[in-house]
């Protein structure tokens, strides 16, 4: 700062002495204000910088908190989904077990239906002919097609019930069959005891004339009239099944009756009985 030049004689228009002092003081105070302003500006800049730092820090913290919340929400969601998955799996397993059970039941019903169909067909076929030859052919068909018999013979007892005479056979060499005494072997035994026998010691397809795979008694109105001997079955049929035993029962009760009815019908010269034959039935 330039000092005002001093003269020996102050001019007439020069300011008074104390005015210069005031000016100096004013200048000094202005200089102090300048410093203060500078300091305020610096402080302001510092605070602004700090504010920015804090805002950045705040944003970071906020983001972190938000991330934590999102992670927590995701974890919760995963937990819920896990529970839901476990519940669905358990329900699926239950449904699968139910489906399996239903499938097994359906297969059982189908098998039962097939068995009943076999029995129905066998029964209707046996009774669908009124000629002894026709009935015999159908009995043979039931044995071959439904039971799977390869060699078999139907024996009927003579009037004295001492011998069983072969009347129809299949798969047995001619001359191999002869009348059998009711006291002889398994065939005679079945006639005497009236109960069917099945050879369970060997495969049904490996039976023989001496060791038939199965022997079934033939009855008419509870009276035994003969037997059916199944000597062997087809090679693919190793064992008799439940339906075979049902067919044996059916044949035992129906085959001879159908045969006797057909024979009587032929004896009556194929004439149907008149109405008078049915008048005394006490219906």
């Amino acid at each position, binding site marked *: 700062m330039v000092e005002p030049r001093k003269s020996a004689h102050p001019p007439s228009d020069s300011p008074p002495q104390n005015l210069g002092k005031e000016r100096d003081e004013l200048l000094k105070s202005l200089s102090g204000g300048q410093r203060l302003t500078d300091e305020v500006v610096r402080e302001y800049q510092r605070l602004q910088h700090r504010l920015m730092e804090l805002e950045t820090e705040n944003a970071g913290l906020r983001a972190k908190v938000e991330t934590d919340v999102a992670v927590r929400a995701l974890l919760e969601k995963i937990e819920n989904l896990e529970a839901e998955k476990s519940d669905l799996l358990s329900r699926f397993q239950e449904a699968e077990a139910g489906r399996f059970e239903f499938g097994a039941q359906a297969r059982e019903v189908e098998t039962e239906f097939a068995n009943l169909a*076999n029995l129905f067909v066998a029964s209707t076929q046996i009774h669908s002919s009124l000629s002894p030859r026709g009935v015999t052919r159908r009995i043979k*068909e039931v044995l071959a097609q439904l039971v799977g018999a390869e060699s078999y013979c139907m024996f009927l007892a003579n009037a004295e019930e001492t011998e069983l005479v072969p009347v129809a056979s299949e798969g047995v060499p001619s001359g191999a069959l002869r009348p059998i005494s009711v006291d002889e072997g398994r065939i005679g035994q079945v006639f005497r005891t009236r109960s069917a026998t099945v050879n369970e010691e060997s495969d049904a397809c490996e039976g023989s004339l001496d060791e038939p795979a199965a022997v079934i008694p033939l009855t008419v109105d509870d009276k035994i009239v003969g037997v059916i001997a199944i000597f062997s079955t*087809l090679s693919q049929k190793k064992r008799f099944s439940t339906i075979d035993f049902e067919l044996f029962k059916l044949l035992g009760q129906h085959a001879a009756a159908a045969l006797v009815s057909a024979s009587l019908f032929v004896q009556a010269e194929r004439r149907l009985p008149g109405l008078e034959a049915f008048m005394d039935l006490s219906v």
Partner: protein
Amino acid sequence: MAEYSCLIVEDSPMMRQLLVFALARVKNLRVTEADDGVDGLRKLAAARFDIIVTDINMPIMDGLKLVKRVRTDPVHKDTPIIVITTEGSQEDRQRALQLGANAYITKPIQAPQVIATVKELLKIE
């Protein structure tokens, strides 16, 4: 729902009845019966069938001859054929399949097996 037609060629009335009973379990399947191979061909000439079930051992014309004839028929050359026979040997099975049969069932027949085979060949659920 589509309706299918099946031709059963079988000389035994009992087997026919049994097959009809079994196939009645297949929904929308109409069954026609033929007594032997010749009757079968006659019915094939009169109508179109989606599947044929035939016995092998039949009088007049056996099942193998029928298969051979069907495979030369322009209408039914691609029709699935199931052959039923008493013979369980591999040789007979091969013979039937070589002639063009699609499946083979051995007697004594089991209804569930017949149903399953027919459904499989007709692609029915």
